[in-house]
């Protein structure tokens, strides 16, 4: 096989893996948008906050340490214990559920039946607040997140492909685990929304608030549930991105990469978020590989957005979004 084709295959595989991570973030957006019609700008920050909290708990960091020290003149930073990864993940999830409750209780409960643009603005506010709280609670330095996921080149794939093609593919173990986790997550979400009472209630709420109330669904409960699930997805995304590139505040910017994914996949489709993520992931890697050298490289920064722009012009509902039918 020609070298060029082998390279392209390797690039495609890596693109698929990167796409899974985009899809994970996009999923969080889709879930909240489907259930409450809110475009949650804070999803990226939620992933950051989840990752910060996870690292903080694992390392036994004292929350608000800087604040406490500044006020009381103390010098405390650590509790001096280390929490095992699994327990820390569970505790972080508890924090995310509490966050979901607070978001519903203090922000969105007061904004029922408001214009979507108002709700969107509220999530922008939430993003800034959450980023600030994350900073005060856990500090702004870059942290290493290691929950015990395998990292580095996958030897087996390297050797197998070397024997088959005479060229070893470089695939990161972390990307493989991200893919597996994402698949499990999606299967669980689909089972939840299709087969459970709460899933059916969730779809009902997304469709019509009044009607949902009239069949005995508590809007408050469903919204807290949705924000908790979004928190859970944010936690998973936070773990994967954090393990890959360290927990740092630029993590919240991955939310921006989710936007083109959503425009491709449609804002209301779970499969759309996944396929959209994969297309963007593969697309930007292949484009960089094939066209990048001709235009001086660095195409990964803009490729996704140009693709999203084309979709907005020619297919605004995305690949899988519900077609907008206007009855006249």
């Amino acid at each position: 096989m020609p070298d060029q084709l082998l390279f392209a295959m390797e690039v495609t595989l890596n693109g698929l893996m990167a796409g899974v991570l985009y899809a994970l973030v996009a999923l969080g957006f889709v879930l909240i948008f489907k259930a409450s019609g809110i475009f949650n700008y804070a999803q990226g920050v939620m992933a950051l906050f989840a990752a910060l909290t996870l690292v903080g708990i694992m390392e036994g960091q004292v929350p608000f340490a800087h604040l406490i020290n500044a006020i009381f003149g103390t010098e405390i930073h650590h509790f001096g214990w280390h929490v095992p990864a699994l327990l820390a993940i569970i505790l972080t999830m508890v924090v995310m559920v509490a966050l979901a409750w607070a978001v519903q209780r203090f922000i969105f409960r007061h904004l029922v039946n408001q214009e979507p643009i108002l709700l969107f603005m509220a999530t922008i506010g939430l993003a800034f607040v959450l980023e600030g709280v994350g900073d005060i609670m856990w500090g702004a330095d870059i942290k290493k997140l290691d929950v015990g996921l395998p990292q580095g080149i996958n030897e087996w794939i390297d050797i197998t492909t070397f024997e088959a093609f005479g060229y070893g593919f470089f695939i990161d173990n972390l990307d493989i685990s991200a893919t597996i986790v994402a698949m499990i997550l999606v299967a669980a979400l689909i089972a939840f929304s299709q087969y459970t009472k709460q899933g059916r209630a969730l779809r009902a709420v997304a469709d019509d608030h009044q009607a949902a109330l009239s069949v005995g669904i508590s809007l408050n409960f469903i919204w807290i549930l949705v924000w908790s699930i979004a928190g859970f997805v944010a936690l998973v995304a936070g773990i994967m991105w954090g393990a890959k590139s360290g927990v740092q505040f630029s993590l919240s910017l991955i939310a921006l990469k989710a936007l083109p994914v959503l425009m491709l996949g449609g804002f209301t489709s779970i499969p759309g978020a996944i396929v959209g993520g994969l297309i963007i992931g593969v697309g930007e890697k292949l484009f960089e590989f094939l066209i990048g050298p001709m235009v001086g490289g660095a195409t990964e920064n803009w490729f996704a957005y140009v693709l999203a722009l084309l979709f907005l012009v020619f297919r605004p509902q995305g690949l899988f979004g519900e077609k907008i039918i206007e009855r006249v």
Partner: protein
Amino acid sequence: MNAMTGNYTTADGRQIGDTLMEMKNITLRFGGVVAIKDISFDIHEGEIRAIIGPNGAGKSSMLNVISGFYHPQEGEVWFRGAKRPTMKPYQVAQQGIARTFQNIALFNGMSVLDNVMTGRLTHMKTGMFAQALWKGKAEKEEVENREVVEKIIDFLEIQAIRKTPVGRLPYGLKKRVELARALAAEPKLLLLDEPMAGMNVEEKEDMSRFILDVNDEFGTTIALIEHDMGVVMDLSDRVVVMDYGRKIGDGTPDEVRNNQDVIDAYLGVSHD
């Protein structure tokens, strides 16, 4: 013009049971506007009770008070022999009061079958993990709920559109699906907000037939709001007449028809 109390037998020989719901001196205000002023009436088990009145009389407000969407400033709501505390609409629904809406509130993205299934939500007890994994008790429960729903779908003659997304249906059928969803809850009290608004004569006849059949077959107590006097008089056992938020008449259709206040409200009265 006092409301009848206790059990009674209707003109067509049906036996009406005890008081199911009683509204006591309800007053509802929106800021300075008094939507309902000191109204009392009761609904007996098994009867078809209508609330009529001209536009803006406060009929829909009254229905919204019963279903918990509005909370009256004064007065008490009694349901099944107990005073009802202030409740949210979903709690009222869980108590066994189902409703339809004047401007149809269906889940447009879902099929007819799924819409009607949401009516069963208050009857589902198994936990979400069991349901997600589709095992044992959850499966049995799902099958039981499906049976109830299929029976209602057959009853209302909407088998042909079971799988159709509700958004695509014409108006008259949407109204029928909404009725099906409310019925799926097997309510103790069914509230219908203008079930025949905007329908043609044929659709009105169909809907009237369904309302009578529902009452007959399932023994469901029905409270309905209607504009169309003719329809109401044919359908209902007892009628409350409202005008400008006050109750001006209460009794059987014949009594109400001959009530001077009611005639004045509907036909206007000369001031000379």
